[in-house]
């Protein structure tokens, strides 16, 4: 699936998006996998209270399932307007 990062998550991880092969069942499982990859991921995902998630462009919570999902995005709380 395609994984996207925005704002300071993009800056900390260093890329705007990447293709991730995963068998993670939920968003939380995917975050756990990413954290183990490298320090920059562990740092970006160190405080999940500061991170929002969208699955196929809909806001979800961390226990949302990933079966059939094409796109997961991580970003800080939104500041539009």
């Amino acid at each position: 699936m395609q994984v996207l990062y925005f704002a300071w998550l993009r800056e900390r991880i260093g890329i705007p998006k990447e293709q991730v092969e995963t068998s993670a069942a939920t968003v939380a499982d995917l975050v756990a996998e990413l954290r183990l990859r490298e320090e920059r991921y562990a740092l970006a995902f160190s405080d999940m209270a500061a991170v929002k998630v969208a699955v196929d462009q809909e806001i979800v919570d961390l226990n949302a399932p990933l079966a059939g999902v094409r796109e997961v995005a991580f970003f800080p709380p939104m500041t539009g307007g």
Partner: protein
Amino acid sequence: MVVRVQAKDFDLGKEISALTAGRSDIGAIISFSGLVRDMAGDQPVFVMELEHYPGMTEKALEKIEAEANARWELQASLIIHRYGPLPAGANIVLVVTASPHRQAAFESAEFIMDFLKSRAPFWKKETGETGGKWVDARDTDEDALNKW
């Protein structure tokens, strides 16, 4: 109902003229414009960088606009939101609502702005004398949704 997400500037007068052209049924038009302030607290702001999530942004704005149209009897509505680097003083966002009487236009414009603040995938980074800083979401913006 129109939503536009664009880098380029907009002209409030032209947008309202286009919206009312050829019709005489509208009784009230409300417009809200959001601009880049040159100060954040006591720190000067030179440029505000607006990042967004192409695709999701349009969907989120259309959903907010549709919800406003479901709640109020609107004759027209328009949301324009800019992205990219915007200098102090620049336009960021425009919301226009039209209705037969003023109350629906007033209320729906405020509703759209309240939801746009914390439900549309935009992120702001302010650059001033000491470099860039991501703007934190405010609890008051989240609280503002409860009144609806």
